[in-house]
């Protein structure tokens, strides 16, 4: 794919970061150089290659280099705790690692516990190392116009992504080259991407958002502007970059857009180049969504739905801010996917009834890495046409079909809890909190009470300039929530903890809340 982009648009910018640029020709040559260096160091087809890189121009080189080598790409977040990195490297049995000098300390700590790993690309070697190191200059020495001939087919594994998983043990999710390309082709077509487009990458490059940010861009010869950590922390500077770099397509979790609308001073920017804004992963608080739609009148907004397991499988293009309904559908199946709403026995529900969403399609993962039992539970076979079997992925998400054929999200099964016998969706509690004017951001989480019931607690960021107290917030909820769904306490915080994708980290909230209880008890 990169070689094609290099042939079609050799001088076009493939990636830019902090003032530096990599053309498609340069990217292709370096990626082929990395593939050749990996093969020269003994890599075999389907061997796992971890990529542990900070945000920068090495990321696309690492990704395409590994894919071109016939190895399986395992992107790892360098900011993860070392134990988590070790878990991923060991579980995938990675033999090679691609990194860079300023990640040296993390790499050395992690590799002390990874006996399978034999080669590190991107670090200088030093005495006493158990593994062989090849510096990045080796990659440049091997740079080539020609991709090595490794005989990869579409169904071969391309990459293993991970999500944190609700227990903290990462889920390792494996996709084939064909699955990645199916999503990329759908996205390039649906959003009419061209070589003139300029994308960014807000989410970390080890998440499924990168499939769009990097691979969909390369499919059409567009540019990916890689955001530095500083830009992620400073919405004003980020908005200024959107303007200066003439970003035309944006894709992120809603939080990033909320920060831009509240602290990006968007009204004073000229962002007419921005034509598509895609968001996914969480509910977009209505008040912030309406505001940013007004601030970006030239952009169309698209709500995409999926998970790392399915990639994007449904989508909904929003009408104008004025025509927005109360809730936002997740829309209809993408042209490469089928959806089915089923009951407990996996039988289709009657039209309009609530049920679990099943997805079948070419973007669904091959399976969880090394977990055949779990795969049998989530990749279920259903009879079809009397003589066939079709494989569906169980999303765990509760949905309902609307009269117009759009699906609407009800709740994630694991965010549905029981409080004193009542079923409560944590997301409804959050929506209620966000409906209060003084609330900027809110998260609800459950604390099990040990009797198969839970207590709801919440954390809230109050709007700038508001001096609201917990008591006022609780009083405000009286009118909008039934009493069993009201949080028993609300912590006022300056910011909500986030996962690397940018979603609210409810595990972290729960842990710090329980920790707070312990501290109170010991006083």
């Amino acid at each position, binding site marked *: 794919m990169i070689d094609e982009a290099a042939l079609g648009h050799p001088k076009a910018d493939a990636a830019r970061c902090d003032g530096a640029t990599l053309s498609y020709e340069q990217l292709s040559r370096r990626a082929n150089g990395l593939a050749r260096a990996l093969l020269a160091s003994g890599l075999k087809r389907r061997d796992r290659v971890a990529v542990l890189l*900070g*945000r920068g121009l090495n990321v696309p080189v690492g990704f395409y280099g590994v894919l071109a080598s016939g190895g399986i790409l395992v992107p790892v977040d360098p*900011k993860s705790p070392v134990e988590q990195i070790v878990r991923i490297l060991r579980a995938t049995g990675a033999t090679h690692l691609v990194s860079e000098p300023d990640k040296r300390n993390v790499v050395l700590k992690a590799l002390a516990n990874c006996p399978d790993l034999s080669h590190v690309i991107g670090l200088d070697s030093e005495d006493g190392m158990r593994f062989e190191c090849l510096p990045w200059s080796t990659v440049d020495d091997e740079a080539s116009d020609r991709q090595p001939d490794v005989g990869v087919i579409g169904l071969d594994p391309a990459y293993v992504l991970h999500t944190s998983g609700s227990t903290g043990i990462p889920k390792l999710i494996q996709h084939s080259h064909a699955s990645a390309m199916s999503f990329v082709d759908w996205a390039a077509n649906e959003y009419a991407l061209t070589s003139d487009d300029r994308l960014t990458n807000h989410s970390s490059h080890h998440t499924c958002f990168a499939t769009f940010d990097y691979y969909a861009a390369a499919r059409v010869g567009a540019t990916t502007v890689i955001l530095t*950590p*500083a*830009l*992620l*922390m*400073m*919405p*004003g*500077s980020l908005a*200024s970059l959107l303007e200066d770099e003439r970003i035309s397509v944006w894709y992120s979790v809603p939080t990033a857009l909320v920060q831009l609308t*509240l*602290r*990006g*001073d968007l009204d*004073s920017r000229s962002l007419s180049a921005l034509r598509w804004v895609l968001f996914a992963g969480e509910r977009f608080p209505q008040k912030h969504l309406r505001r940013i739609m007004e601030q970006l009148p030239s952009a169309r907004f698209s709500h995409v739905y999926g998970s790392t397991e399915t990639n994007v499988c449904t989508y909904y293009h929003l009408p104008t801010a004025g025509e927005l309904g109360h809730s936002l559908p997740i829309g209809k199946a993408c042209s490469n996917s089928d959806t089915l709403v089923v009951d407990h026995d996996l039988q289709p529900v009657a039209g309009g009834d609530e049920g679990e969403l099943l997805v079948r399609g070419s973007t669904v993962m091959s399976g969880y890495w090394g977990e055949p039992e779990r795969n049998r539970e989530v990749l279920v076979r259903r009879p079809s046409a009397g003589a066939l079997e079709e494989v569906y992925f169980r999303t765990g998400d509760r949905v309902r079909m609307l009269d117009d054929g759009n699906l609407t999200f009800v709740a994630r099964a694991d965010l549905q809890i029981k409080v004193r016998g009542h079923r409560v969706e944590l997301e409804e509690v959050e929506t209620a909190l966000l409906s209060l004017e003084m609330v900027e951001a809110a998260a609800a989480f459950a604390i099990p009470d040990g009797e198969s019931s839970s207590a709801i607690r919440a954390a809230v960021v109050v709007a700038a300039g508001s001096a609201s107290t917990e008591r006022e917030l609780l009083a405000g909820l009286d009118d909008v929530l039934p009493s069993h769904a009201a949080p028993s306490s609300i912590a006022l915080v*300056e*910011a*909500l*903890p*986030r996962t690397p994708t940018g979603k609210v980290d409810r595990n972290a909230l729960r842990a710090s809340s329980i920790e707070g209880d312990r501290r109170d008890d010991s006083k």
Partner: protein
Amino acid sequence: MTASDVERRILTFIRSELVSSDVSINPDDELLSGAILDSMGVVRLAAFVQEEYQFKMQPADFMIENFRSVAVLAHFVRKGTSTGQ
């Protein structure tokens, strides 16, 4: 309040509230490289200086050039308090 007073208080806050004890940090260190603060840390830092020095940051103030390092932030805080924002 001198520049070094402000720097010192900001450093004390970062060391005691935002980073683990094995992270060393100096006034001119790059604050936003991702190695010292995360985005939650930045929000807490912004809240701290506004509270401590009784001034209000505007949306347009959330720029890299105001938070690049402790020294730069201290300068920004002094400017913010002197113009009485």
